[in-house]
């Protein structure tokens, strides 16, 4: 299983975040934090949050999770409109277990 997390952060900011998570005592982060500083992939996925269009942080995505099968097809997804709303770990785990 591959886990890819995408944000508009720079690679330096992602490294900071990975370091912070790694210091929580549960070991190093095994996740790729991917940097999309110009929100190109965020736009290609139609996820730029319109709520911030007039602000400096324009380009942040709506929170979204996609579960893809081995052929790269979407098997499950959840796109929220508010960054405080995120799917639970259990929901994502169930979506991953729902197919061979």
């Amino acid at each position, binding site marked *: 299983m591959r886990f890819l997390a995408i944000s508009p952060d720079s690679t330096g900011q992602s490294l900071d975040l990975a370091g912070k998570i790694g210091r929580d005592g549960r070991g190093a982060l095994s996740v790729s934090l991917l940097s999309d500083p110009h929100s190109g992939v965020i736009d290609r996925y139609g996820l730029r949050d319109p709520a911030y269009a007039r602000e400096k942080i324009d380009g942040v995505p709506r929170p979204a999770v996609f579960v893809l099968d081995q052929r790269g097809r979407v098997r*499950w997804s959840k796109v929220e409109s508010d960054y405080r709303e995120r799917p639970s770990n259990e929901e994502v785990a169930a979506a991953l277990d729902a197919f061979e």
Partner: protein
Amino acid sequence: MIRFRFLAVLATSLVLIAASSKVVPPVVGQEAANFTLLDQNDRPARLSAARGQKVVIVFYRGYW
């Protein structure tokens, strides 16, 4: 008058084109668009390199 009507039609079709080309997130059954982005260690990561494995993609807002 004809000219005005032409402009009105043109404007309407431009609005319609803009609306229809709005990108929406991929839905279940669709192939997720490929991308290559740098990870926290400045190494390029390509979605298509994960073919053969299940993949979870999370979009998050970052630090701001």
